[in-house]
């Protein structure tokens, strides 16, 4: 390259960058769009290196007009830049770009196979209906890659003429028929979207009738089912009875698309379900069918998520009572998703005396049943269940948060059977009211055994965090801290989960109590407090001996608030100032400096400047001042 060309090349690169960068930053450019385009075209016509021409193509994709098409299209055969040329041509609206692509793909093309495929791809992306005749010719190209590209492009164009060309190619014995089949389905979808259902279905059926891979047959069958609605149901049943897994899978998939959702046609949905029930019934007749029954049940549940019809529920409940373990479990799960209250009662009967897998499945299913009346079924069972069934029923009270049953569950905390007692405590975690919370607090402070302690601790935490009256809840817990002995730490942990003013005050008092284990627990939870109002408490603990050996921990908790919480910057700066004065550990003072840098602000800058006088952080403070000043300075030069 000559010196003149090098200078020109460097200038063009700068120009292209400015053009593209100007666009990306949204600044108004002084050059008129045509002038900008001409500059970029000039780059394409120059001896500039390819990398810089690629950037010019980028600019033209954003700013180019039909005026640049000729220069851009000249690169359609370039091994490196052809795709850049097409990026630009695909972006420019209007016939000029399409015409250039058609010309490049015509019978006189000089393009190599790969670049020709690219041009054909672009015709498809542009949906160029005028290209259909030449693409139809390319369907018979000796190069299978070109032929496949032509098929795909015709599919995307999706006109009646494109469909005719593809249909004709379907019948031909060509190595790329799979590509044609795929394109037929795509084309059919386009026709369907345009309202031409008859032509679309004809294409789908043509693919189905010919010998193609299971995948292509599956796609075409799905399309035919969805296009035909009611008339497609027999095809759906065929899929669900198909031996090849690929086809059966498509049946399951398509059945989840046909007549589902809030806008479904209820009559069609009913017919589809009826067909599925028949398919389920007949599936018992073969080994392969029996293995698929859990999936059919799952399908029915998915389709009836807003509530199963009587026929669907009856079939599924019968399956839940059957001998096949896999089917039974699938049916139990399905009832949980679509059954009504009577089905819940049925599941509880199934659970009586059942093994652990069935018990767990029944509990999980009923716990989340959305139907009305389920709670009443459960509560009614509390009085009449034996010790074997009570854990399940009580557990469901908790799972479903049946707060009206809290009073009925309370007595079970004293039951002879430990499994019943444990279940009762767990359920109370979900349903107990504030007025009875002390029962759980007492079980934590003075448990019967380790198992009860564990159950009560978990239950108390769950109950405490959901109490609307946080301060009232904290007050109940606070009363027990003094007499809880070694278990007081658990109560302190629970107060941290409760939060609020009373909890904070109680934990602060615990930190200053002089009892080491209590102070340990209290300072630990204060260090993770989720609201900034813990800051004054932590500062006091960090600057006095109130918390004993935990001053350092308190300081770290204080710094955490300064570092992580959304605060007015003046307040944060003041916190940092106080921390610098109070911190005993040099590492904590260094941490303060890091906080100042993290939040550049005139207030934090002032504190950083003050910190320059503190010997063990002087260097860090000076660096921080520089950094903060830099961040606060206005941008050089402006825009």
């Amino acid at each position, binding site marked *: 390259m000559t010196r003149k060309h090098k200078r020109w090349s460097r200038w063009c690169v700068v120009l292209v960058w400015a053009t593209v960068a100007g666009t990306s930053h949204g600044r108004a450019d002084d050059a008129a769009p045509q002038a900008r385009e001409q500059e970029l075209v000039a780059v394409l016509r120059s001896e500039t290196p390819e990398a810089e021409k690629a950037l010019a193509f980028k600019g033209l994709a954003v700013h180019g007009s039909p005026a640049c098409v000729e220069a851009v299209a000249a690169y359609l055969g370039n091994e490196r830049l*052809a*795709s850049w040329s097409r990026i630009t041509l695909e972006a420019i609206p209007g016939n000029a770009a399409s015409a250039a692509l058609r010309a490049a793909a015509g019978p006189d093309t000089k393009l190599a196979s790969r670049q020709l*495929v690219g041009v054909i*791809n672009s015709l498809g992306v542009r949906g160029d209906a005028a290209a259909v005749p030449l693409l139809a010719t390319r369907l018979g190209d000796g190069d299978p890659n070109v032929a496949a*590209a032509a098929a795909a492009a015709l599919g995307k164009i999706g006109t009646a003429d494109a469909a005719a060309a593809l249909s004709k190619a379907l019948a031909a014995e060509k190595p790329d028929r799979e590509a044609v089949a795929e394109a037929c389905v795509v084309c059919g979808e386009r026709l369907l979207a345009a309202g031409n259902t008859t032509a679309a279905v004809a294409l789908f059926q043509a693919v189905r009738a010919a010998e193609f*891979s299971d995948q292509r047959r599956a796609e075409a069958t799905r399309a035919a089912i969805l296009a035909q609605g009611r008339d497609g149901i027999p095809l759906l049943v065929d899929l669900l009875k198909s031996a090849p897994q690929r086809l059966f899978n498509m049946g399951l998939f*398509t059945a989840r698309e046909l007549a589902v959702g809030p806008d479904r046609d209820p009559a069609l949905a009913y017919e589809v379900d009826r067909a599925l029930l028949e398919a389920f019934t007949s599936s018992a007749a073969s080994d392969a069918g029996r293995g698929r029954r859990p999936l059919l049940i799952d399908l029915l549940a998915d389709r009836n998520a807003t509530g199963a019809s009587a026929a669907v529920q009856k079939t599924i409940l019968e399956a839940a009572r059957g001998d096949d373990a896999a089917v039974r479990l699938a049916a139990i799960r399905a009832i949980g998703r679509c059954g009504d209250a009577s089905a819940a009662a049925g599941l509880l009967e199934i659970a009586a005396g059942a093994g652990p897998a069935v018990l767990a499945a029944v509990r999980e299913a009923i716990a989340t049943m959305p139907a009305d009346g389920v709670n009443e079924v459960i509560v009614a069972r509390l009085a009449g269940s034996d010790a074997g069934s009570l854990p399940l029923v009580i557990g469901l009270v908790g799972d479903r948060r049946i707060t009206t049953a809290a009073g009925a569950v309370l007595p079970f905390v004293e039951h002879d059977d430990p499994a019943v007692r444990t279940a009762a405590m767990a359920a109370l975690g979900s349903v107990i009211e504030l007025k009875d919370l002390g029962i759980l607090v007492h079980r934590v402070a003075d448990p019967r055994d380790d198992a009860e302690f564990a159950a009560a601790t978990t239950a108390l935490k769950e109950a405490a*965090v959901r109490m*609307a009256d946080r301060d009232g809840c904290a007050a109940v817990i606070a009363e027990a801290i003094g007499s809880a002995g070694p278990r007081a730490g658990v109560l302190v942990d629970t107060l941290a989960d409760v939060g609020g003013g009373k909890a904070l005050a109680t934990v602060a008092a615990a930190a200053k109590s002089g009892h080491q284990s209590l102070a340990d627990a209290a300072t630990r939870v204060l260090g993770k407090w989720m609201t900034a109002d813990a800051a004054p408490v932590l500062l006091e603990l960090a600057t006095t001996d109130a918390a004993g050996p935990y001053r350092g921990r308190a300081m770290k908790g204080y710094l955490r608030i300064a570092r992580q919480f959304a605060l007015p910057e003046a307040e944060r700066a003041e916190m940092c100032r106080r921390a610098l004065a109070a911190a005993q550990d040099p590492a904590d003072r260094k941490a303060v400096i890091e906080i100042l840098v993290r939040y550049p602000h005139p207030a934090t800058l002032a504190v950083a400047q003050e910190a320059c006088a503190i010997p063990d952080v002087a260097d860090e403070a000076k660096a921080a001042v520089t950094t903060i000043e830099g961040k606060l300075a206005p941008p050089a030069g402006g825009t």
Partner: protein
Amino acid sequence: MQTRERSSRRRFLKRAVAGSAAAVAAPMVIPSSALGLDGAVPPSERIRVAGIGIGRRGEYDLGCFLQQPDVQFVAICDVKQARRDAVKAIADKHHGTAECRTYHDFRELLDQPDVDAVLIATGPNWHGLMAMQAAQAGKDVYCEKPCTKNIAESLILRDTMRRCGTVFQAGTQRRNLPHFAFACELARTGRLGRITRVYAHPAGMKAFSSGWLPEDPAPDPAVADWDMYLGPAAWRPFNAKTLADGFNFEKGGGLVGGGVLEWGSHCVDLCQWAVNDCLPPTDYAPPVDDQIVCRYANGTELIFREKDWIPLGSCPVRFEGETGWVEAGDSGKIVLSSPELMAGRKVEEIGGYPATFHVRDFLDCCKTRGKPKGNADAACNAHIACHAANIALFLGRPVKLDTESWQFVNDEAANRLRSESLREPWRL
């Protein structure tokens, strides 16, 4: 369907047609809980998974797959030999065999009849195209995010997954974490009142059109295949740093790179789940006061912001309704406007955004043919929202999207950025 070696595809298809039950046989589906064999699942009943482009993130995903008793990892494909060897070693060690096969060209891997599903963890450059080719080959797809490079690709991805009957799971694993799910449920079920605003953290609000790094000598294709790495992306000079930075290569495409996609694809996905898995916003504006404000058709605002979050970890989201709000992040914790919103629910706090549950959800749906949480429809809508926001960022002005035609309204400049041609011979 594109192929470089159409003969191998023909051989596969002829096998598939002639003996379809055998050639494409998938495991007979029996729930593992019914086996009672200490949780072990016989190899004949496992889902056969292959991986493509398993790097650092992909190795994590692979670990989640290998934790599942009903997974058999059968093959790895990568343009870098070192990665093929490394992943094969992981899989072989896990299964106690030497049977994990390796491939250079992912099309050969997709031709294999004994692969049921693929884990795609290449860089974003390949995600969408590869996922679609896998679907067309009859494989289910777990695809890392971001899944697409532009609006048009998002729509084609969705349509392809539907057409092919593919179980598709985007790598948006937060939908399967209980605290995020609970937050979204509060919004969807009206517990917060009518939702007025949803907030997403994008981890980046700069969209740009970039240039190239200086050209390096190209590597031996047997060691690292640059042409295949480039794939559908337009030609550019080879640079070793580009090869090493698959995570960022072509994120958002070549015309409009960067932008809100990094965390946006996660956070917007959650926001739209909160608004009943809605379509993307119709209105987008560039940043004002460090916020990008978009508006859904029902008037709810989607706001991208990087500041003023409660410290709940990465990928935070916030949903505001007329009667309450909730905020959640990757720490596993949620913060509510009122404790009454908990209503006694137990919401497990799982921090660190693990993908284990997401992988399990995917595998379950591979068996049932149901829709996983990060399905193609949801992924499409979330990605379109991010791409449209990026276009407003790039153009520096508001844009309006018609969510029926999927065109920007009276906006040729924005419409030019909806799609981008693929380097030949690749096509969507």
